[in-house]
């Protein structure tokens, strides 16, 4: 999807639909498949998403054992994760800031957008840092264990703090205080609009008890 406004709105609608009901979750997965799989290089969930999914699966097992509906929880959370992974892979630098300024203006909108951009950038850099650390560990033939994982986590945290400090200094040096000027430009294709309409229809289908509507009509 080219237009980040439509993508964000679709992702919100689908997340609500997926979390609300099992049917909504299945429909959200179908929407994801229709948007992701027909590409020459499909947007499949990355390792981080799979790791989170494994944690969700563990929670679902615990829910199942304790008498809850673990399968339903797993289904709904899997759909939410798929949609989140799709949004993360589709997102391009600067888009969140554009949407935030379009929504909230050059003051609060810019502030929120900048914060979100920095947070997303940190996530992407974290992903890259982990890849480099794994390469370094492979080159050194290091053994993996708790001590190695703790050292890796410590290095990641220090690296992130250093980066945040550098970014803050750069912003301060450039005279940044509050808000900023940005003229957002969006390009929406016809298929983006259709996909967004479908996402909202799925949300309505998931939230409105359709069976009751037919009873009323009868």
């Amino acid at each position, binding site marked *: 999807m080219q237009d980040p406004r439509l993508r964000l709105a679709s992702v919100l609608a689908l997340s609500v639909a997926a979390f609300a009901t099992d049917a909504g979750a299945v429909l959200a997965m179908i929407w994801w498949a229709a948007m992701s799989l027909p590409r020459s290089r499909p947007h499949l969930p990355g390792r981080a998403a799979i790791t989170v999914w494994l944690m969700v699966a563990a929670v679902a097992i615990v829910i199942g054992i304790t008498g809850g509906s673990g399968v339903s929880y797993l289904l709904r959370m899997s759909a939410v994760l798929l949609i989140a992974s799709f949004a993360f892979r589709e997102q391009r630098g600067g888009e969140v800031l554009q949407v935030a300024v379009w929504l909230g203006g050059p003051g609060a909108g810019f502030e929120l957008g900048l914060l979100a951009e920095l947070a997303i950038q940190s996530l992407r850099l974290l992903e890259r*840092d982990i890849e480099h650390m794994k*390469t370094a560990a492979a*080159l*050194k033939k290091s053994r993996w264990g708790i001590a190695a994982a703790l*050292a890796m986590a410590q*290095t990641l945290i*220090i*690296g992130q703090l*250093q980066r945040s400090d550098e970014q803050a200094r750069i912003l301060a040096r450039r005279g940044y205080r509050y808000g900023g000027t940005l003229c957002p430009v969006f390009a929406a294709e016809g298929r983006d609009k259709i996909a967004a309409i479908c996402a909202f229809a799925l949300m309505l289908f998931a939230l409105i008890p359709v069976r009751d509507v037919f009873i009323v009509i009868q």
Partner: protein
Amino acid sequence: MRLCCSGVRLTRGRFDMIADGVFEPGIHLVSGRIGSGKSTLAHILAGVRPPAAGVVSAEGITTTGLLMQFSEYHVTAPTVAGEIRSWGPEPEAILAETGLTGREGDHPLRLSRGELRRLHLACMLAQPWDLLILDEPFSALDGRQKELLCRRLEQRPAGIVIIMTHEPLHLPACDMLWEIVQGTLMYRGRIPDALPAWDGAPSQVRSLLDRGVVPENITPAAIREARCRIRG
């Protein structure tokens, strides 16, 4: 001992590059503009990243070292001493060599970029790699440290050393010259015969070539000597 690339193809987003050739023992310089794919090629040659197509075969190579472009990428231990041990050597000698004695308990990311680069280079050069790939080894080093690194590289025992860099001034005496031009890794030949064909030659080498003088090598000393030939 040799490293062969046959039909190797590198892709990174829209970027596409082709590499064919054989790296034999000696010091190879691979030059190319920023973003030409040197780092991706370094990772593929070191075997830490598979090529999109083609084969990299290492014949008679049992140990491979790769210095990545940014030293931060190498850090895997929470202390300077631990970081040195993670490479293999004992810390005392490396700490003394790099002037970091007393800082063995610091986190490696607390070092300056130059200190961290020196530390990793010292750890790497302390080991007898069959294949040593250095991606921008001169970055974050001052002129004196660059000279020291050049001398150490020249003194290494037989093996394959591949240096990926766009450093223009401080270079070691190299045996073979490669260049990445428009998405293709080109073998220019043995130095000094290869120098006239070097499209991206640093300005001081280019100015000599334009005057019809070919330096014996690309070290600062060889370039000074070639300049003297013009004046003589």
